[in-house]
């Protein structure tokens, strides 16, 4: 009994109960149809998850991360409900922009099939662009970082070009590239290219000199030096740029899918926001958030695997 109580996180559970009680307060505004049952459903699902994590996850630090995040979600839902339907705030006159969570969740559930297609299309676009960026920026970065003289000049040029928002390139991409799809991919390529190039170059410049000497005494050829010594040695640094590139890719997803796309999360959000349907647009925004979180998690697993040789 004592053990059970000790494992139960107090604050997140209290917030769960507070969330249910908030739902019982009288509504003040009715301009948009709310679906409180969806909010309650989500709250209960999250609470089940909370209890499962509390008792099944053994590692304390990991358990705290999950339970804290769930607590924050509960707190946010309380605030969301209070601000949109339980108080008559001035902004609520434009309630189309501030839909309550139940309405958003209802749209999210109803459009779920469409959402899956959107996720698939967006991930295909990002994967396509990101892969091109990785496969060009890393070898170029290795080359420029290794050739000190040209690299110094390239560093400044990369800074200059990297500071230009990829959105600026969109009209040129549409004119120059054969398809709209290619233009969309191009936006993602440009977005992730610069941070990966910059981090690869600085990674190469910071490789421990003694490692390079050690490799030299083994008579490694130019190719082996670049791809079997310099590349793995600068991989920790390269991953920093790859992380940034991935984040920027998702930020620019909306812009990329403005170009002639007919599906995808960015297109979905942009389209519904343009027609004033913020309930559906918000459902899309939340989906993007979930997708980014999952992708980041998987990316970190990959990073931890590839850098398993490094002392934590």
């Amino acid at each position, binding site marked *: 009994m004592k053990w059970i109580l000790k494992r139960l996180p107090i604050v997140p559970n209290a917030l769960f109960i507070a969330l249910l009680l908030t739902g019982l307060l009288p509504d003040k505004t009715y301009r948009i149809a709310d679906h409180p049952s969806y909010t309650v459903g989500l709250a209960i699902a999250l609470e089940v998850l909370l209890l499962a994590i509390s008792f099944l996850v053994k590692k304390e630090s990991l358990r705290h991360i999950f339970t804290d995040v769930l607590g924050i979600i509960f707190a946010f839902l309380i605030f969301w409900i209070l601000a949109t339907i339980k108080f008559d705030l001035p902004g609520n006159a434009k309630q189309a922009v501030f839909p309550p969570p139940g309405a958003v969740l209802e749209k999210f559930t109803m459009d779920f099939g469409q959402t899956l297609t959107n996720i698939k299309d967006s991930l295909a676009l990002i994967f396509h662009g990101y892969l091109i960026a990785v496969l060009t920026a890393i070898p170029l970065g290795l080359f420029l970082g290794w050739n000190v003289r040209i690299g110094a000049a390239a560093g400044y040029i990369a800074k200059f070009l990297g500071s230009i928002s990829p959105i600026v390139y969109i009209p040129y991409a549409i004119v120059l590239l054969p398809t709209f799809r290619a233009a969309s991919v191009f936006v993602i390529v440009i977005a992730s290219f610069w941070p990966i190039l910059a981090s690869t170059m600085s990674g190469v410049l910071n490789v421990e000199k*003694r*490692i390079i000497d050690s490799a*030299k*005494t*083994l008579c490694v050829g130019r190719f082996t030096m670049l791809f079997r010594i310099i590349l793995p*040695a600068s991989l920790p640094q390269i991953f920093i740029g790859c992380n940034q590139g991935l984040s920027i890719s998702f930020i620019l997803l909306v812009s990329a899918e403005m170009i002639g796309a007919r599906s995808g999360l960015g297109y979905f959000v942009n389209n519904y926001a343009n027609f004033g349907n913020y309930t559906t647009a918000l459902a899309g925004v939340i989906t993007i958030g979930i997708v980014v979180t999952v992708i980041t998690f998987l990316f970190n697993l990959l990073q931890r695997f590839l850098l398993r040789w490094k002392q934590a």
Partner: protein
Amino acid sequence: MNKIEIGNIQAEYTDKNGTFLALKNVSFAVREGEFVSIIGSSGCGKSTLLGILQGIISPTSGNAFIDGQPITGPGTNRAAVFQHYSLFPWMTVRKNIAFGLKQAKKDLTRNERYETANIFLKKVGLTGFEHKYPFQLSGGMQQRAAIARALAMDTDILLMDEPFGAIDAKNRSNMQELLLTLWEGDGRSKKKTVVFVTHDIDEAIFLSDRIIMLSNSPGQIAAEFDVHFPRPRIHSTIRETGEYINLRNKLMALFYDENTGVAATEEYAI
């Protein structure tokens, strides 16, 4: 026959404080199969000298020959062991050795490389650690793996730059005995020529056939000593002899004389 010949080497070194002379008029020769230690305090240019032999540093003037051929760069007739980062941190111990083998002997298959790696890991007592990454091993084990790689490459010449400098005293003695055992081999095969850089006088006496002492800034040859203890050598039997104490005292006197102040502070700092 002379395996290595160094003639009138000068080496300049430039950093933000300007250019200074690291080595001045250094000449010596190493016979085939000889174990030579180069001893001197930090910054006396002994690592520069080894770098020249490794082919990763070019002397400002003078000649360096191996087998009568001038050194123009690194070569697979030489294997190196450094104090740090001899091994590549992203390769497992076995992969590190296999990588060295691949560079030294192009005609081995992948399986042959791994088998050879296992044989040499066994020789240095690292069986069972094949799939560990360097960071998972102690400093002494890392150096044993580095020595295993150098020996597996089966080069004529072994160039070692303070390989035991970062290892605690007890392990260091063990490593020195291990190194000699491996170097002496079964007595039938040809001994490798070793150039061993150190600032540890006891280490130099225990290991070497000959000791070359460098003086400080600029590095010049201050003295040479032949070491005549019979092999195989064991620490416990050599340390007590009068000959050892004599040689040690001579070296110590010269060491502190040549490096007044500098070496003394270094000794006490450790």
